[in-house]
């Protein structure tokens, strides 16, 4: 069967289950049911502080075949997954499903656990390019990996589709009774948004901290009512690893031209106005758009409602300059953002669910006006790939991409027309993460393409001096420069399932034929 973005899907995927095909970006709304939570209540007098990770694993009765989760904001600085998994491996527990939020190169030792069958399933919102991404692409995992957006992951947890047996939550600061905050301690990372659903819905919750403080660990973000045990370790992570992406405004003249065109487009489309809300990714070009938007807001004396997202110091500055009344934060990207989140009540944290979960009474993305996003590839239907490279190797994930594209009034993709020799605008993307029906405009250095579905924008900008072109034209320009790429041959083996934010399947990642390697025999 084919889903609504034309992807051919089987009815059933071994190791995943029955396929619910993507039926359109807004087909999943309506009556929903949340899962019931099983927990062991705690009576007065009981202590939660344990001596070691090993003891915690005994206490929670971790067994073969369970699902364990590792929500983390420490990105490539996270030490929790490695420490916990080393203990689990030593204890001989196997066949585990790891429900992570992010996988980064620092988690490379997972490859060994995957090969040994200790880890047989893995789900995440983002898998950074590296050894784990390659191993998954080669089909080393017994079950296909599952990729969910930042809103889709908590939706899956709250609905019961992703049942977590034990959540291991890295706690920059905790007290002995399980209250946690992210703004104090040597691994302070700011908001703990991604772990809220894990804490609320997992059967067992273990807080792992390197900064145990006297009760209570105010300002509490995840509270004692959700936490079973507390364990101390030497280090939960290195906050410098948070800044593992590109977190500075690009100096590349092409990126700056794209940013300037994007800001002019947003302005001419009428979105730079009082009460506006804004989010942008943390890539160099996206940040450059933010800088251009800031300039235009100042020129027009505009006061915005809020900026959201993964928050950088740049966004904090804009709030402090009076350009936005508040900030909604799902991930602090630098020390300035962490300090602002800690000290400024207008710098509001939000759970992953509040951020992007469609099965709520309104996620924050629904309040977004302008969303600036990147793309690894975009096709002439405006479908966007941020999951795999054009060679089919996993190198990312939706993160908040398809949540924000769906919620925002104006979603703007900013990207170079070609990157090195690779064309970015193509007739078909390798993997769909975000459906074209939720993408409004593509801005490249060679021209701007408005999605024909947005006839209102086409009318509004009909006299614009901006270089507006059909997206097919951009595709031709890209191919004229790079040549037409030879198609990558894929096998039929599904190595990852890409869920849309509503839990339907928007695409699958198949194993490219010449990546070598084979599934280890059990």
């Amino acid at each position, binding site marked *: 069967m084919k889903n609504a973005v034309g992807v051919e899907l089987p009815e059933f995927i071994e190791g995943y289950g029955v396929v619910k095909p993507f039926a359109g970006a807004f087909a999943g709304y309506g009556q929903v049911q949340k899962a019931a939570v099983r927990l062991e209540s705690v009576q007065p007098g009981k202590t939660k502080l344990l001596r070691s990770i090993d003891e915690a694993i005994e206490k929670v009765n971790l067994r073969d075949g369970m699902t364990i989760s590792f929500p983390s904001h420490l990105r490539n600085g996270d030490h929790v997954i490695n420490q916990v998994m080393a203990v689990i491996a030593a204890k001989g527990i196997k066949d585990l499903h790891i429900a992570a939020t992010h996988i980064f190169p620092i988690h490379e030792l997972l490859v060994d656990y995957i090969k040994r069958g200790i880890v047989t399933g893995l789900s995440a919102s983002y898998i950074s390019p590296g050894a784990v991404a390659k191993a998954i692409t080669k089909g080393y995992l017994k079950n296909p990996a599952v990729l969910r957006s930042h809103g889709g992951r908590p939706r899956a947890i709250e609905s019961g589709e992703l049942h977590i047996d034990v959540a291991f939550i890295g706690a920059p600061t905790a007290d002995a009774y399980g209250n946690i905050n992210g703004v104090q301690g040597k691994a302070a990372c700011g908001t703990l948004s991604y772990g809220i659903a894990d804490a609320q819905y997992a059967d067992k919750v273990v807080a792992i901290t390197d900064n145990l403080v006297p009760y209570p660990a105010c300002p509490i973000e995840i509270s004692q009512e959700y936490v079973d045990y507390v364990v101390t370790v030497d280090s939960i992570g290195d906050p410098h690893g948070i800044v593992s992406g590109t977190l500075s405004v690009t100096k590349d003249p092409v990126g700056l031209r794209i940013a300037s065109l994007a800001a002019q487009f947003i302005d001419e489309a009428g979105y730079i106005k009082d009460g506006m809300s804004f989010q942008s990714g943390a890539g160099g070009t996206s940040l450059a758009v933010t800088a251009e938007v800031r300039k235009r807001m100042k020129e027009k004396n505009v006061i915005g409602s809020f900026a959201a997202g993964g928050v950088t110091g740049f966004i904090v500055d804009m709030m402090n300059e009076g350009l936005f009344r508040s900030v909604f934060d799902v991930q602090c990207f630098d020390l300035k953002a962490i300090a602002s989140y800690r000290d400024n009540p207008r710098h509001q944290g939000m759970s992953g669910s509040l951020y992007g979960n469609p099965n709520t009474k309104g996620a924050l993305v629904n309040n977004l006006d302008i969303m600036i996003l990147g793309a690894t590839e975009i096709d002439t239907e405006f479908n966007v790939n941020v999951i795999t*490279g054009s060679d089919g*190797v996993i190198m990312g994930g939706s993160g908040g991409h398809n949540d924000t594209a769906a919620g925002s009034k104006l979603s703007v993709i900013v990207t170079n027309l070609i990157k*090195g*020799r690779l064309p970015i605008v193509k007739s078909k993307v390798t993997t769909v993460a975000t459906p074209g029906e939720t993408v409004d405009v593509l801005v490249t250095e060679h021209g701007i393409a408005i999605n024909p579905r947005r006839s209102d924008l086409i009318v509004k900008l009909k006299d614009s001096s901006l270089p507006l072109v059909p997206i097919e034209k951009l595709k031709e320009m890209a191919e004229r420069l790079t040549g037409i790429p030879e198609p990558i041959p894929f096998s039929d083996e599904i190595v990852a399932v890409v869920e849309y934010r509503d839990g339907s399947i928007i695409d699958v990642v198949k194993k490219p034929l010449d990546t070598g390697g084979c599934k280890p025999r059990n």
Partner: protein
Amino acid sequence: MLITKTAQAGSTVKSDVLITVSPSETPGIHLELKSKDVILKQFGKQIEKVIMDKVKELGADNVNIRAEDKGALDYTIRARVQAALERASN
């Protein structure tokens, strides 16, 4: 065009290619292409053809060519190949 010595053109910065040419003891054009997998899989043959066409056009033979590609476009590759060959031929 007689290749008499080793010469280079280009660089290993993004979107460029470093071409190294040297005289070969065995007849023919000996091409070694290095690039990222993602490029080789989709454009490897095309890049090889662009290089070979340029070498033949300039009439060079008995030559080793090493191309260290960083995502260069065809016109860049042609220019670097020509510059390297001309530097190596006098």
